[in-house]
């Protein structure tokens, strides 16, 4: 960080002073895929971790060890392997809980963050027929679900669908020109009719970090529930559910160095206790008769089917890996790379960054457009240079529309990225401009 004369515009982050730099060289050695060549043997410059991260060998080994030594169906089977698989799965639950400061009984394993968000949305419509304990989840005509225009489709479409199923009304916070949630009309939007507020914990496009705790305080004062989409926050900075403010938090394993096929819903225990199930079947029942069934307490109530134990074990290993690095160090590393990328790209004529130009309340998604060159063509030219970025609307179509663009190119950073890779991106952008200008 640099200091300037005069009073600081904001107080330094107390965590900042305590961070230590990541040993990126050592980290990169843990990720076999970073050693492969692409497009004519060029080194891979992977700037698409916001879509999915790579996996260190420690995670791959943990998953392989599970299959090699303990593989069995958790929570069933009268044999030793079944016991070991169950122990491994439940230990993984406890490990993931510790990663976000939660109790193990508040961690529901899903197949993805998307499913975690759908779980809450479907539980709310299922509440209509689920008995008195589920009353606080019921929504219907006259009730409102409040989202933001920044949301990933996964935290938008399930709420649109909930409204269609129940007759509730969807409302939303707009977006500021800087790509943040526009909270200027919060008092008008959060009312006694609001039953639930669903908000991103970090935009996957603009990187904006909304004040979730502040929004949650307003929502709770009106009796509304709060869901935070942590898919882009939990992998990248310390998240503690004790200070989060929200009632539910969804995130996915594959974006945080873990395997694909598993995600997490954290929920306050008393809410999970009262919430009806979404997906039903084996593992989640208490007693089944032909006339009807009763269900287990959470988290099992929400985990129908044979658990994804190997994936849970891999996710736990990813939590170990990240905690060994220190999440505050991970955040500091990404903040440096983000600042570098914002400065380098903003200096190029014809480049427009979609999102704040400083790292204040901002994570490491750097989306941009290049005047006169479509993002697909930008992505193609960068790919030719070995640079992997995302180039489309990043599952946030309404946000792009609100910012007046059809699509964008997005670079995202993680523990294994370097400043040289940021330089390669900026040089790639200049080469792309030359290619499309010259011919």
């Amino acid at each position, binding site marked *: 960080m640099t200091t300037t004369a005069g009073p600081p515009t904001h107080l330094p982050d107390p965590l900042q002073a305590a961070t230590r730099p990541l040993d990126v060289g050592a980290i990169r050695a843990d990720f076999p895929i970073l050693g492969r060549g692409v497009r004519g043997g060029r080194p891979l410059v992977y700037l698409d971790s916001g879509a999915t991260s790579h996996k260190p060998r420690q995670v791959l080994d943990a998953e392989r060890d599970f299959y090699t030594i303990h593989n069995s169906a958790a929570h069933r089977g009268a044999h030793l392997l079944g016991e070991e698989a169950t122990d491994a799965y439940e230990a993984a639950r406890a490990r993931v809980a510790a990663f976000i400061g939660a109790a193990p009984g508040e961690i529901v394993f899903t197949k993805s963050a998307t499913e975690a968000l759908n779980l809450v949305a479907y539980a709310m419509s299922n509440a209509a027929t689920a008995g008195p304990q589920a009353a606080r989840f019921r929504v219907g005509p006259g009730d409102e679900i409040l989202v933001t225009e920044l949301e990933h489709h996964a935290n938008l479409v399930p709420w649109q669908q909930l409204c269609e199923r129940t007759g509730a009304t969807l409302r939303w916070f707009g977006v500021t020109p800087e790509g943040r949630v526009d909270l200027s009309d919060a008092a008008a939007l959060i009312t006694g009719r609001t039953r639930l507020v669903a908000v991103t914990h970090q935009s996957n496009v603009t990187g904006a970090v909304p004040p979730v705790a502040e929004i949650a305080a307003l929502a709770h004062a009106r009796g509304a529930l709060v869901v935070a989409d942590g898919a882009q926050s939990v992998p990248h900075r310390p998240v503690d559910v004790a200070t989060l403010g929200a009632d539910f938090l969804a995130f996915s394993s594959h974006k945080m160095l873990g395997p694909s096929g598993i995600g997490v819903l954290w929920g306050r225990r008393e809410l999970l206790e009262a919430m009806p199930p979404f997906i039903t079947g084996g593992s989640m029942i208490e007693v089944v008769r032909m006339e009807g069934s009763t269900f287990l307490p959470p988290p099992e109530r929400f985990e129908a089917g044979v658990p994804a134990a190997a994936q849970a074990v891999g996710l736990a290993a990813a939590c170990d890996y990240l905690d060994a690095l220190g999440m505050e160090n991970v955040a500091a590393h990404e903040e440096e790379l983000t600042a570098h990328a914002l400065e380098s790209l903003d200096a190029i004529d014809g480049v427009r960054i979609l999102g704040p130009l400083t790292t204040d309340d901002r994570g490491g998604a750097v989306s941009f457009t290049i005047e006169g060159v479509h*993002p*697909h063509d930008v992505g*193609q*030219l960068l790919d030719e240079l070995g640079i992997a970025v995302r180039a*489309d*609307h990043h599952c946030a179509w309404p946000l*792009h529309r609100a910012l007046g663009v*059809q699509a964008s190119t997005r670079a995202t950073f993680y523990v294994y990225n370097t400043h040289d890779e940021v330089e390669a991106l900026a040089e790639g952008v200049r080469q792309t401009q030359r290619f*499309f200008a010259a*011919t």
Partner: protein
Amino acid sequence: MGVESLYQEIILDHYRHPHNKGLREPYDAQVQHVNPLCGDEVTLRVVVKDAGGEPAVADVSYDSLGCSISQASASVMTEAVIGKTVREAMDISAAFLELMQSRGTAEPDEDLLGDAVAFEGVSKYPARIKCALLGWMAWKDAVSQALDGPATQAGREQT
């Protein structure tokens, strides 16, 4: 760069100077197609007229937003099909689709495809095939609608 096989000069030329772009009246059918991944879109109109007892593509006009490949492909498509009988034009469209699905192994028929052979390189980049096909699929849909029955413009605008 290998990417130059994708961005051939003829493609970049059609991208910068698209042919038949801009919606024209009258028309027999209009469709809107979107690539859900990137939001690229095309609105396309066709006029189908009888030519010696056989339906023919009298005009194609379009408006579109998208990448160089989708823009150039729509432009090339209009050049390839306008003035052809629907049967001939459908043959060209089928040949183009086959070329796109060839993963770079096809030997395209230049007599049939004209400038569209320049898109051979696209077939080596699976992520871009949808871009190249956007205009062609819209055209095929619009022609089918135009042939479906007596054309009233008001009844043709929904897709």
